[in-house]
């Protein structure tokens, strides 16, 4: 579950991680009022969307008066902000965070995440933060500092102090950094996070460490332990079709092409998407149905493909096995076609458990299907069908 910046800052404040004074606003008037209430003489107005790299897109604006804050908020609210992480359609700005502007001497990068190869929580850091951090660290991996956290003992004082030193911090700032690393690990554990990223963490002129921007992701698999955090989920940030898919236990991601894809298992679905690209096709989505999928769930999933106006052809690639049977999938597809109408070519590759029965079901229901014998053949056929339809 992705959190907004303001939500992440509020959660971290409970653990003693400081950030500039700020407040959420949903209108220009609220924004001006927030600026007056939090005080100061300069403010930053920040679009609250689930995507990074907002600054260059105009999503972060510096203002000198409450009136300017209102104006900036009015300009952002209701607008679709396009950043390199939002996709071409951008994301609708529905709220802004108004924050006291702070002047600072340095920008640091500090994050807590799961180090998969170690199977541990790790703190990673870099002396210089900023928007281009990923590219910089990719070019100079040696600049990435890290500290693996012991699952029992937590963040070791000496290791944290050494990391603070490597970040070029000393005196009170170093002590704050050590406390901050401990607090981040504690927050990571307490909230069942999978990522907490402070970028930048700034050192103010007074020597105080402040989290200027925070990105936080919570582990969906652990949400049963945190009913109190459920209301932080902002469903309006999610594509409505993806939200509907989740209700039917389907894993669905909208992409920008014209070939609808349904497969079972993430690996096979990813491989299918890759294969379409190799054949010059553009997938419209990634849809993975779960092994325990019911006929009704398949029907709902297939309807999502049928309703996507971009779709010019559909590929179903099912490998039946375990508790997933191809005939269940075929019945679900047939029901969706009956209800919604099939207006594009449908290519089906059904292999494994009851694959032959699936073909019979689709044929007996009078669904116009082209069957493919192999993955390669299926991909070639659907790319050809999508191209022909578009031409």
């Amino acid at each position: 579950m992705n959190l907004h910046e303001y939500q992440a800052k509020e959660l971290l404040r409970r653990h003693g991680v400081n950030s500039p004074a700020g407040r959420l606003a949903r209108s220009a008037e609220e924004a001006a009022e927030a600026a007056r209430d939090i005080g100061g003489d300069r403010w930053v107005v920040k679009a609250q969307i689930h995507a990074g790299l907002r600054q260059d897109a105009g999503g972060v604006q510096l203002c000198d008066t409450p009136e300017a804050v209102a104006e900036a908020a009015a300009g952002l609210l209701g607008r679709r902000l396009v950043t390199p992480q939002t996709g071409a359609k951008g994301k609708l700005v529905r709220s802004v965070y108004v924050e006291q502007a702070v002047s600072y001497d340095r920008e640091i990068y500090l994050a807590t995440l799961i180090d998969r190869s170690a199977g541990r929580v790790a703190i990673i850091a870099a002396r210089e933060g900023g928007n281009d951090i990923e590219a910089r660290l990719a070019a100079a991996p040696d600049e990435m500092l890290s500290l693996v956290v012991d699952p029992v003992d937590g963040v070791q004082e000496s290791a944290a102090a050494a990391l603070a030193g490597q970040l070029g911090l000393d005196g009170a700032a170093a002590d704050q950094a050590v406390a901050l690393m401990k607090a981040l690990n504690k927050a990571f554990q307490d909230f069942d996070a999978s990522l907490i990223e402070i970028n930048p963490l700034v050192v103010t002129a007074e020597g105080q460490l402040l989290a200027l921007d925070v990105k936080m992701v919570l582990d969906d698999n652990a949400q049963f332990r945190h009913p109190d955090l459920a209301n932080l989920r902002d469903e309006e940030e999610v594509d409505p079709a993806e939200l509907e898919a989740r209700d039917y236990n389907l894993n669905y991601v909208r992409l920008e092409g014209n070939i609808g894809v349904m497969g079972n298992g993430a690996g096979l679905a990813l491989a299918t998407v890759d294969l379409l690209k190799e054949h010059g096709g553009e997938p419209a989505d990634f849809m993975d149905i779960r092994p325990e999928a019911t006929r009704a769930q398949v029907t709902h999933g297939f309807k999502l493909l049928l309703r996507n106006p971009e779709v010019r052809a559909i590929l179903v690639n099912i490998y039946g096995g375990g508790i997933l049977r191809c005939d269940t999938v075929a019945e679900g597809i047939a029901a969706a076609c009956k209800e919604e109408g099939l207006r594009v070519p449908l290519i089906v590759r059904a292999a494994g458990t009851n694959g032959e029965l699936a073909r019979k079901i689709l044929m007996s229901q009078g669904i116009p299907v082209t069957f493919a014998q192999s993955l390669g053949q299926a991909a070639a056929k659907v790319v050809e069908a999508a191209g022909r339809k578009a031409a």
Partner: protein
Amino acid sequence: MAILIDSDTKVICQGFTGAQATYHMERAIAYGTKVVGGVVPGKGGRGHLGLPVFDTVAEAREATGATASAVFVPPRNAADAIIESIDAGMELLVCVTERIPVLDMVRVKQRLESSNTRLIGPNSQGIMIPGRCKIGVMPAHLERPGKVGIASRSASLTSEVIEQISTYRLGQSTSIGIGGDPVHGMGFVDCLKLFFEDPDTECVVLLGEIGGSDEEEAAAYLSANPAPKPVVAYVAGLHAPTERRMGHAGTVNVFGQGDAAAKIDALRAAGVTIATSAAEIGLTVRQAARA
């Protein structure tokens, strides 16, 4: 000979009486797996599928001599079930449970490191020795005994590859699903070591995907220890959009790591034969196995 299990390995099932466990354990028994009982706290003393049920793994191990356990316990209790088995000294655990909180797996990982237990999974389809035995949820239809060892992060892709290599009349020595979760037990490197030592395996196939570092670790291992047998790899997700979750918790690009192209480059540089197209994995294996 196969790796990790064989037809005489005694197996128990944790969460034995659940619907999924019942379905898959019945099939495992029919396949030839020597299932000797199950563990369900509070249901000790009962029977299920004609086998005894115990309250704890320690009791089950004591009474049956089981050395392996199939873990079908729901996500919120799965980590504790795994740790119970580690403490009871089980040698091999196969955990099929999906959606275990990642911090629970961090706790499990630490306990594993100070034990002699091997864990396959979680979120694994299991392990299968064709024609002899299987633990997990893998389907049985096209597999056949043979010389190809498969280690995979994806169940459905494994079925696809078994079908493809079957058209070349190639079978498998052992097929292992290491699972798709960010923190898991055995990795590709562990599988490679076992397959290299196994006289019945002549060629190894690694089926990877974006996210995680199993492929990079396999590449680093093979660079330092040249493979004594041909190794073929396929990595799914070359065209997956970044920053999006594709399927399960193990497939998200964090920090540029886990990029499919980087994994492929690393494996190729380590001498691994890369199947560049999902439709041609079988053909690539055929060519590598023949070489």
